[in-house]
């Protein structure tokens, strides 16, 4: 029986919205006046759940509200949730960067955090000097670092540049170096936030492997926050799902990821209106994807996917446009892509029906990424005008009537069903 190394009890964190500086003196004085009279802080009572999209009445919000969890020694706990669900706030409290408004966290080990890599890196200093500085910032002593420096350099794969100032490094190299330092830290608990987003595939693999070693081989505990469901699934044993500052799910990682995909996201939604969270970069100013509507809400392996796509064109546009996109699994793996033929658009709102036939997707949940591009795919000079990342989620069901399909699809078989036939030749 492994013991509990970290225990969070009723962690809450309150933030004040709006501009800090206006009215803070009056609030401070008010707070002080209540305290002098021995009363409770008046601003702790108000505050509402943290829903980014809804306008609230109060200036104070709870970024986290009554979070409770326990982590066992050697466990890798994933923390997942939408943007603004409170993940980073929780990590900040865990790494002592900020203190909770109420509640407490008890721990039996040192906590080191890797909230953003390269903290304290100084561009003018060499890689080697930065390893020492960064290591010390993360809580190692000079002696500890000196005894591991060769391993750290080897792991980072930056031997050749190690005596060059870090400002000459590529961003990938900086991340490698920073991750290498953190990976050789020896805290009992390591807190990691979205580091694996950078670095090439080879390094990501190396990093995930190292984190598995850390947790399994060396018995250290890792708290891992990421949007990359594939990484969460391959690393974590257990996960908690946060939504609006509250824990909405706690349990095994597979169940948690499924919960997150289905609850916090858009599965089963017939209509998704796009906002900033769907976009990873700015598009063309005259084109804007507005929403996507699923025409068929239940789709089977043999069925077809049908969507209506709404978009706005603000100016007359002579060129043809086309719709492209890809279908992704819930762990962000890309399954395939499609490219429509090109069509003319008119000024104002356009509605395009998108049909994907013979998709052969197996039972499960998938995302659709959509892009609106100008040009023709045949000329291979597509220019993206707007896009919606994870535009809509849909689920493929199995119908009883699909007699020739396997009755229960095993996820280990993959995401595609290949129609096949055999012919007896002899």
């Amino acid at each position, binding site marked *: 029986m492994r*013991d509990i190394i970290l225990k969070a009890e009723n962690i809450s964190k309150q*933030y004040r919205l709006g501009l800090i500086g206006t009215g803070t003196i009056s609030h401070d004085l008010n707070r002080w006046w209540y305290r002098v009279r021995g009363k409770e802080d008046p601003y702790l009572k108000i505050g509402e759940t943290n829903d980014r999209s809804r306008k609230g009445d109060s200036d104070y919000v709870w970024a986290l509200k009554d979070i409770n969890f326990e982590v066992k020694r050697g466990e890798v706990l994933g923390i997942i949730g939408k943007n603004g669900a409170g993940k980073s706030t929780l990590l900040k409290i865990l790494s002592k960067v900020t203190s909770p408004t109420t509640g407490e966290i008890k721990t039996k080990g040192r906590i080191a*955090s890797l909230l953003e890599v390269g903290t304290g890196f*100084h561009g003018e200093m060499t890689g080697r000097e930065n390893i020492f500085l960064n290591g010390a*910032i993360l*809580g190692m002593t000079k002696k500890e670092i000196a005894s591991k420096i060769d391993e750290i350099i080897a792991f980072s794969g930056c031997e050749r540049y190690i005596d060059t100032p870090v400002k000459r490094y590529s961003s990938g190299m900086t991340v490698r170096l920073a991750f290498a330092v953190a990976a050789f830290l020896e805290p009992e608990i390591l807190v990691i936030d979205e580091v694996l987003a950078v670095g090439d595939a080879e390094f990501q693999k190396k990093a995930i492997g190292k984190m598995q070693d850390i947790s399994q081989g060396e018995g250290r505990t890792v708290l891992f926050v990421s949007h990359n469901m594939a990484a969460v699934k391959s690393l974590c044993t257990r996960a908690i799902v946060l939504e609006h500052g509250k824990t909405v799910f706690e349990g095994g990682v597979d169940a948690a990821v499924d919960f997150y995909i289905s609850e916090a996201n858009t599965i089963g939604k017939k209509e998704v209106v796009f906002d900033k969270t769907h976009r990873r970069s700015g598009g063309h100013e005259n084109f804007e994807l507005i929403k996507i509507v699923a025409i068929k809400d239940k789709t089977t392996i043999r069925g077809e996917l049908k969507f209506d796509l709404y978009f706005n064109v603000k100016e007359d546009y002579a060129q043809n446009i086309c719709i492209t996109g890809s279908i992704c699994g819930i762990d962000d793996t890309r399954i395939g892509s499609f490219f429509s033929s090109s069509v003319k658009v008119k000024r104002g709102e356009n509605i395009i029906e998108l049909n994907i036939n013979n998709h052969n997707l197996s039972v499960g949940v998938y995302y659709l990424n959509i892009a609106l591009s100008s040009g023709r795919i045949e000329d291979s000079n597509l220019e993206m005008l707007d896009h919606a990342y994870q535009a809509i989620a849909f689920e493929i069901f199995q119908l009883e009537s699909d007699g020739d399909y396997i009755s229960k699809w095993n996820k280990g078989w993959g995401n595609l069903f290949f129609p096949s036939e055999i012919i007896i030749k002899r």
Partner: protein
Amino acid sequence: MNKHETDDWLYTISPRKGVLNLNFKEIWAYRDLLLLFVKRDVITLYKQTILGPLWYFIQPLFTSVIFTLVFNNIAEIKTGDGVPPFLFNLAGISAWNYFSACLNGTSDTFKKNQGIFGKVYFPRVIMPMSTVVSNLIQFGIQFLVFICFYLYFVFFTDAALQTTINSTVLLLPVLVCIMALLGLGFGMIISSMTTKYRDLSFLVTFGVQLLMYGSAVMYPLSLIETKVIEGTIPEWVGHLISYNPMTTVIELFRHMMLNVGDFSVGKLIYAAFVSIAVFLLGLIVFNKTERQFIDTV
């Protein structure tokens, strides 16, 4: 079993700790970090400058020349028999520069390090402490410049016949500590107060400049005393200047190096006491701020 478990916690993260929760053990554990920050400051200071460390002696030299012209040649302030005014000013400025560098360097600790403080935890006080230590290098260089001019005046001119180093020079390290603690203490108080209300940061630069005029940098304290007796300066101004701990420090420094002004153990103890009090107050305020500042900065 249950009891054993609760006793086992290494530490607890909770909303509020006591005001006097100064974790010296933790600061000691991070001493390597302090040295590495000092090393970083030293390595990166002169990157991309042409004159490099020369800047350290250009500034005090020019200031001393101007002070000598304005205060000694034009305003005819007497610096005492056998003490060249230039040397007198240079001594005051060298000492003052260390204090003001410490104060200025630490007074924006929270603002300057917002990025790093927002990501990792280490005892925040390491940052201002490292500034104070790396400023010692600046002080060392300026002190060396002073010694060079000192030797020049003593051996190659007749202007400094009575200028001898006093035996109290052995107390110089104590004096440097007092300056460091004063600068650090005030710097920590100011940096803590500016996290929420930025107004104070505007005051620092010119406040330090004004304070210099009240710290006997370019005139001897004895001059103020005679002026108070004459009645040209109101008594409260005289008190303000003579009870200013930096006045004491600069007077003592000149006494050690140039044998002007008077020296008393009482004054040294007074300055030491004030500096320790300011430092402790700074530490308390800083400690209180460091837990909340990331939400307000």
